[in-house]
């Protein structure tokens, strides 16, 4: 028996989208995300909500090893979104990353093209916690001065990878960071440095 | 004392009421029924279906009634409705070779299998107003045609030419999904399928003018009407879960196959080239103009210089849609007074500077 999707498809999708939109418009500032979903583990309610709100037959989705290993996850996403799953990170419109610590190098995902930078992959991370006001220092569009956010866990060489991502602007990936009940954005336009305490 | 204008809502409501009155006209005259429009304004209905990209004669007739006979407005109503329809998939390609022809003429052969079928056409009518039509009355039934031995077989002229290799082959179906310009923004250069979609729903007048321009030398294509056929074809759909075609119904189409300018080289024998037109309903003018423009738009593919408007796909595709054109032209009647004020301020300043400068030039001269 498949777990149900949104109880209210129209308004739950809208609410999820608005939280993600606000998150990308204000990088590093976590927004509330009440998914109201109970998807098969290890898919988190937040990853599931974003997939249900934003993916469909037009958006190839890539799953990380932990998610791909559980057939119920693919079945759930296929049933509720109709999105094709892809094995190739470079083909993915969205990538769902349950274990960010073991995320493939960012450069393996679609970076967009100079004529169409919008064709880059959107990565969605499931983190244990997102804490604002400490951790990484962020500057760029959407940020009034500087923002700070701490990711737990933080992937290896994350800051160096993000610096490389930023340096290719307008090409590059956009990251949606989720934690239980929260979502934050790290679009390619954001410059990220290590935070000193 | 000036009081700011209010009452946009009341004005809109009143405008809607006035429109409804104007639509009805003199109530002493009987109201048109949708069936009357569908049956007696059939070519107008066909045009609305063609440019509306929706085959539904009743809906097109109703749209015409609602639009007071304004074609572009009726197309608009049909398109806005079409957008809301669910899509279950794409039909199998219709086989116009199997068309039950009501009319079929070829300009390239005097006679051919299936024969020339004149059918219902204005072509040889003398355009004299028939005052008898002002009085209501029944028309005489048309005479039954003499049956021919080859009736029922009506191969396409281009297929006959292709048997001898005299015309370029129709490009094979490579199985690739066909784009849909109503679902995806056009990315230039657009392939031929997308160009044909745009032309099929393009404004008849615009496409006609472009086609005409190619005949006058702006992208000449040496066209011959290989064939025009009008008639009904079956539409089949293959549901994924069944795997075999299910008939959905029949639609009336007009198809024009132009035989154009031959090409060849030291390595390839000369062959005629093709231009293609297809519309819903009966519209030979549109199908022919479309075929001319289709061929002109193939200039680059066929190694011809792209120098004329009809050969320029960005120009043609960006401007052939009657709804886009009418919307943007007519939007000029919306208030623009904020921008006009900005221009007014600049022009007044520039004029003041102009006269100040010319005054000082004059003073210096005195």
């Amino acid at each position, binding site marked *: 028996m498949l777990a149900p999707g949104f109880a209210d498809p129209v308004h739950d999708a809208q609410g999820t989208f608005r939280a*993600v939109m606000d998150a990308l*418009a204000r990088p590093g500032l976590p927004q509330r995300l009440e998914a109201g979903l109970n998807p098969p583990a290890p898919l988190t309610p937040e990853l599931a909500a974003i997939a249900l709100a934003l993916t469909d037959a037009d958006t190839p989705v890539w799953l990380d090893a932990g998610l791909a290993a559980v057939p119920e996850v693919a079945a759930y996403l296929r049933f509720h979104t109709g999105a094709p799953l892809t094995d190739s990170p470079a083909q993915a419109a969205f990538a769902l990353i349950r274990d960010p610590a073991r995320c493939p190098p960012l450069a393996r995902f679609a970076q967009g093209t100079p004529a169409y930078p919008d064709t880059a992959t959107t990565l969605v991370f499931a983190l244990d916690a997102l804490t604002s006001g400490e951790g990484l220092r962020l500057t760029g569009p959407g940020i009034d001065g500087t923002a700070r956010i701490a990711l737990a866990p933080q992937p290896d060489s994350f800051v160096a990878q993000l610096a490389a991502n930023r340096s290719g602007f307008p090409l590059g990936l*956009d990251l949606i960071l989720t934690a239980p009940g929260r979502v934050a954005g790290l679009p390619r336009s954001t410059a990220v440095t290590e935070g000193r305490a | 004392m000036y009081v700011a204008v209010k009452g946009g809502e009341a004005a809109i409501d009143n405008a809607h009421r006035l429109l409804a009155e104007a639509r009805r006209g003199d109530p002493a005259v009987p109201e048109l029924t949708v069936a009357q429009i569908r049956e007696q304004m059939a070519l107008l209905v066909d045009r609305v279906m063609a440019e509306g990209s929706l085959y539904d004669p*009743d809906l097109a007739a109703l749209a015409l009634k609602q639009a007071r006979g304004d074609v572009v407005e009726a197309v*608009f109503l049909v398109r*806005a409705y079409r957008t809301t329809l669910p899509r279950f998939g794409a039909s199998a390609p219709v086989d116009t070779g199997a068309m039950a022809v009501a009319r079929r003429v070829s300009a390239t052969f005097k006679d051919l299998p299936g024969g020339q079928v004149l059918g219902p056409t204005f072509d040889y009518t003398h355009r004299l107003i028939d005052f008898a039509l002002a009085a209501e009355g029944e028309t005489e039934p048309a005479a039954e045609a003499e049956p021919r031995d080859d009736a029922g077989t009506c191969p396409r002229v281009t297929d006959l030419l292709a048997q001898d290799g005299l015309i370029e082959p129709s490009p094979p179906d490579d199985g690739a999904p066909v784009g849909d310009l109503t679902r995806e923004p056009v990315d230039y250069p657009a392939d031929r399928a997308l160009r044909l979609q745009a032309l099929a729903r393009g404004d008849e007048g615009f496409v006609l003018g472009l086609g005409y321009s190619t005949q006058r030398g702006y992208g000449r294509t040496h066209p011959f009407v290989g064939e025009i056929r009008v008639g009904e074809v079956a539409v089949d759909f293959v549901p994924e879960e069944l795997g075999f075609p299910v008939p959905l119904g029949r639609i009336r189409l007009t198809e024009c196959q132009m035989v154009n300018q031959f090409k060849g080289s030291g390595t390839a024998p000369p062959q005629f080239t093709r231009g293609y037109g297809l519309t819903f309903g009966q519209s030979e003018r549109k199908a022919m103009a479309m075929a001319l423009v289709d061929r002109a738009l193939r200039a680059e593919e066929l190694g011809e210089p792209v120098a004329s408007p009809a050969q320029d796909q960005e120009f043609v595709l960006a401007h052939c849609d009657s709804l886009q054109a009418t*919307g943007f032209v007519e939007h000029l009647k919306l208030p623009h007074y904020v921008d006009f*004020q900005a221009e007014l301020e600049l022009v007044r300043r520039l004029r003041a500077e102009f006269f100040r400068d010319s005054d000082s030039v004059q003073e210096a001269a005195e």
Partner: protein
Amino acid sequence: MSATGTHELFPSPLRGGGRGGGGAEGTTEPRSAPPPPPAPPRKGEERGRTPSEAGYNFAYLDEGTKRMIRRAILKAIAVPGYQVPFASREMPMPYGWGTGGVQVTAAVLGRADVLKVIDQGADDTTNAVSIRRFFARTSGVATTTRTTEATIIQTRHRIPETPLREGQILVYQVPIPEPLRFLEPRETETRQLHALAEYGSMHVKLYEDISRHGHIATTYAYPVEVAGRYVMDPSPTPKFDNPKMDHSPALQLFGAGRERRIYAVPPYTSVRSLDFEDHPFRVQRFEHPCALCGAEGVYLDEMLLDDAGRRMFVCSDTDHCEGRRADGHVGTGEAV
């Protein structure tokens, strides 16, 4: 209903047999599940019933279209000033009349939003009234004329005078999104120019104005550079409004329906009007205060009062003007 949930179906107003076509205006109930597929077409005359907006999805667009537009909006925010192509739908209002802004608003709008719609700065211009009604009927959301109360403001040609705040969204209706269009009409060319950040021709054009007129002759749709990268058309707002875009706390979304483009400026983002060291960017100034509320430093409409040349200048932003008058500010009421 499709098992995947990707085809939200809703009946049309014309084929609404059995859908209870008598829904009153503005009472569209949010549905928890999409309605059943439309009844099969019927021949003949029975379809010409009074349309009922109750048959349409929340905010008119189907969910698949909203998803497509939402994805475009997210990429637009991630690449500020870049024009994201999107599959603009044919809306029940004409191209050129706000179909892009309407689609963006429909994709963003939620039940808790409060919507304001202005055209030329005014809430009561006919097209603003028409679009506001469209959303009131199809979504049932609250509408307002007050800038401070709105969460989403759809606009044509103006940015409100009242400073916007965090959490507000300004949706611009855009006719020609391509700032380079009048220098290079071909999309294939302009796309390359943006890819290479090759904006020299724009500077040349502005400088030609200076040599001919002594001033930059662009007074509205004045090009801006966003976040130091893309040159962007701010929509045909007067250049008076350009400074309001720079580091605005509000999110700015731009929708061009006919041209099928969406672009965005996130909050707190640099928006610089193109200019030259010896010809710095300057906005329009009006010699007179608003005759109704006495406001200075705002954009004014010029009203012709008679055929003898008498005119009066009043606020273009009607809400701002009404708010000031409610606070006791009075203008001279005089013609000039």
